[in-house]
């Protein structure tokens, strides 16, 4: 299965995302921000980093790139898209996902091994987990606090659109300890911690993150 990994100027974790796709048995294809051809990929990953320096707001400028103008309509039609960290921010800025990611409550960048609980295993990117499964993957960002208004929060909670929550102390002030969400259809997922950095215990805290990528391999499109 071919999975596109987008590189914006300032993207940092594209190689890691591609490695994770390969570890999961897929083929990673690099997509350049300035192109608008998705080359027939079966899914797209927006990796972490600081697209366009994250100046203005995280993900704000990336949203207007040519590649996003191809991804947005495709995602609306059901193409699986996973946004990790900065990718999650881009998905929110693109209105493919609701809410926004804001400054961590402790006001500084935080890199640590974070326990999260998968609370919805019906999305395209979480089907290889079981519900309630607890995993440890790296969290690393300065603006990872998930915020939205009460109505949106209600909608997310009552429609089972939260896919993962932080376990224990809320690391960044996210509402309801939300670590990741999905769109109504379940094909677009945003997650703040980094599953692509947990596919090999040699370089990550665990290999727990791999299931995000193997989930896609099992998704029927």
């Amino acid at each position, binding site marked *: 299965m071919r999975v596109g990994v987008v590189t914006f100027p300032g993207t940092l974790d594209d190689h890691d995302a591609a490695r994770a796709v390969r570890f999961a048995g897929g083929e990673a294809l690099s997509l350049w921000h300035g192109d608008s051809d998705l080359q027939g990929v079966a899914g797209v990953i927006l990796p972490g980093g600081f697209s366009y320096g994250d100046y*203005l*707001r995280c993900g*704000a*400028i990336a949203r*207007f790139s040519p590649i996003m103008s191809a991804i947005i309509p495709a995602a609306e039609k059901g193409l699986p898209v996973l946004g990790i960290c900065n990718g999650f921010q881009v998905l*929110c*800025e693109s209105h493919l996902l*609701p*809410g*926004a990611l*804001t*400054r*961590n*409550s*402790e*006001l500084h960048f935080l890199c640590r091994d974070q326990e999260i609980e998968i609370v919805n295993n019906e999305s395209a990117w979480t089907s290889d987990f079981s519900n309630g499964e607890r995993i440890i993957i790296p969290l690393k960002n300065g603006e990872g*606090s998930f*915020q*939205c*208004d*009460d109505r949106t929060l209600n909608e997310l909670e009552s429609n089972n659109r939260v896919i993962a929550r932080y376990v224990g102390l809320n690391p960044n*002030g996210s509402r309801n300890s939300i670590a990741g969400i999905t769109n109504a259809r379940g094909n677009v997922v945003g997650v703040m911690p980094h599953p692509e950095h947990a596919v090999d215990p040699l370089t990550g805290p665990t290999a727990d993150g791999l299931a995000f990528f193997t989930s896609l391999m099992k998704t029927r499109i």
Partner: protein
Amino acid sequence: MAKVIVDVVLKDEILDPQGDAISRALPRMGFTFSPTSVRQGKSFIITLDHEPGSDELSEIEKAAATLLSNPVIESFSIRVEN
């Protein structure tokens, strides 16, 4: 020459940890005025080499609404200085 300033603030219901941190720091640093709240905002100072026409102002307003602020969490206002 003119400056068009777009002020962006977080909506009231959105958590503002930076504003809160400042509220907490003020008394610690010996300041005695006691605000009911402190919020941190952003501003964009757009300098033009001429007075902006109404077309330009409405373009700037569009930029403010789409690029410079995120309507999900922020609101904005525009002022012109000469």
